[in-house]
């Protein structure tokens, strides 16, 4: 049976815990957590991930910079990226998608929406 791996990049321990709970509902999905963009890049350098879920507003390196870096990484340049943010405007969404994000979820997050988005991007039934 296929196994997928997901990297969550989020500085808030509460949001990370919530995302881990939500993504535990996706069968055969192994979740790894990173505290911020730099930690995320470190983890991406040491393993291959099938999907990345990242917050935008983070200290040290924010989510948009992370998206840019991931898109220039030959290993993960095609890896789907889900952006999670408090910004709900159309412009913010467009900016994130233009940078190379594949999906955009606004806070407060709804677990079923996160699950559905990840499943859709991984093409899991």
């Amino acid at each position: 049976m296929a196994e997928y791996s997901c990297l969550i990049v989020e500085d808030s321990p509460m949001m990370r815990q919530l995302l881990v709970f939500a993504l535990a509902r996706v069968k055969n999905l192994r979740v790894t957590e990173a505290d911020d963009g730099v930690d995320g890049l470190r983890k991406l350098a040491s393993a291959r991930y099938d999907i990345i879920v990242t917050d935008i507003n983070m200290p040290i390196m924010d989510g948009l910079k992370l998206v840019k870096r991931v898109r220039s990484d030959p290993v993960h340049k095609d890896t789907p990226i889900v952006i999670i943010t408090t910004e709900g405007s159309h412009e913010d969404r467009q900016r994130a998608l233009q940078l190379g994000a594949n999906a955009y979820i606004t806070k407060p997050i709804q677990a079923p929406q996160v699950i559905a988005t990840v499943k859709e991007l991984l093409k899991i039934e």
Partner: protein
Amino acid sequence: MVSQKSGRGGGASDAPPPDLKRERDELLHSISKGTRITEEFTREHERMEARLRELETENASLRAKVETDSAVRELLEKIEQLEKEKRELMSRFHAAEAASSEVTARVQEIEAEFANLANLFVASNQLHASLSPRGVMRRIKEVLAQLVGAERYCLYLSSADKSELVPVAFEGIPGERVTPVSIERSAFGEVFRSGAAAVNEDRDPSRGDFDAPAAVIPLSVDDQRVGVIAIFSTLSQKQRFDTIDFELFKLLGQQAASALVSASLFAAADRKLPGLESFIDLSV
């Protein structure tokens, strides 16, 4: 050459005697009649044969028609039977479809319930994950911002004499608006006194403001009211409060203040854990 004369009477003439002639004529007549009858019979026979062929053709045609009618009847019966089977199958299919939709709806309901419980668990877990007042306050703000979707809010605690609600933490509102409010003569005081949350469910909470907050939640420790959280407005994408938000309000009301009080007492005790003697005689 001698010619022999024959015939009765032995006359010299070639003409037959009249009786023979009559017999001959009668014979000829009979033969002629027989011939005519034979011809008529032959024609009649031919007509009969033609008619027989016609009848045979007609018979074959009728037989084919009867057979066709029978086949059509059989086909109609088969169609009726198939229609009946189709109705039965459709009925079973609709029943299965309804059952499937019911199961799908139930699964979605359970998933939503699970998500709500996960939110409550995470919020509760985070509120009690710190024993520093600042850490607890940061977590209360996180629950408000990340789980409820509050954009502008303020946490007030009551003054020692219970006359005022004093702002201790806020977000998204100008400092000059953050002032103590009277418990006796304010809407926040009303919530503090009654212990019942005030939530305007008819209004889009993202459009709330300082004078008409989207929600005011009383904070209690045990049975004592200690303050309120006022959510003035939510993020623009959060346009109504859901069941989970009301559950989070209850959780904040019951646990936020007790987490703050515990952290404050721990800080006041120089972060010293209570001795074993504090837990003796606790068994009930």
